[in-house]
């Protein structure tokens, strides 16, 4: 289980790096928001994988907080786009 867990963490890391790259590329605000939303979900998933790997309950709290922060970020940017146009 340890080996599979670390391989999974490596896969999540690669996915997060690709997503950060997507957010940094010159794209529209909505694209960046979608990428950052996916990024918070990936970080949350990685934290939960870490919680399973080390049987550590602290990481579950962190995943919970990350999920809420990602939601707030998406909603804030969506409101901003709706008002300002771009």
């Amino acid at each position, binding site marked *: 289980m340890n080996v599979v867990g670390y391989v999974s963490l490596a896969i999540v890391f690669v996915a997060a790096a*690709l*997503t950060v790259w997507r957010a940094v590329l010159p794209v*529209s605000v909505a694209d960046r928001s979608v990428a950052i939303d996916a990024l918070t979900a990936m970080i949350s998933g990685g934290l939960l*994988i870490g919680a*399973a790997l080390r049987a550590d*309950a602290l990481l579950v709290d962190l995943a919970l907080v990350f*999920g809420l922060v990602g*939601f707030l970020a998406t909603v804030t940017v969506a409101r901003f786009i709706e008002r300002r146009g771009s």
Partner: protein
Amino acid sequence: MSTAVDVATSALMLVGALLSLIAAIGLHRLGDVLSRMHAATKPATLGIVCCAGAATLQLADLSDVTKLAVAVVLQLVTAPVGAHMLARAVRGRPTLAADE
């Protein structure tokens, strides 16, 4: 018994990680904002559920499992709301929906 739990945990962790990778590839390859949103919501729902299932199998304490359930329910409720607000903001705006 313990081996079976470990195998199930490994499978769930791997599925969650692969969903993240699929979403990252989809963010780069798909054509417009709404298609990319479709790819990006995979790890936000199914990926989180798989990873939380893996953590549930390894954490025996009931309070930890309750926290995991709360995390999953919050994610399942908030992900569609956020995606809906973003899609509504983008809809009908060709400058935002176009690629680059």
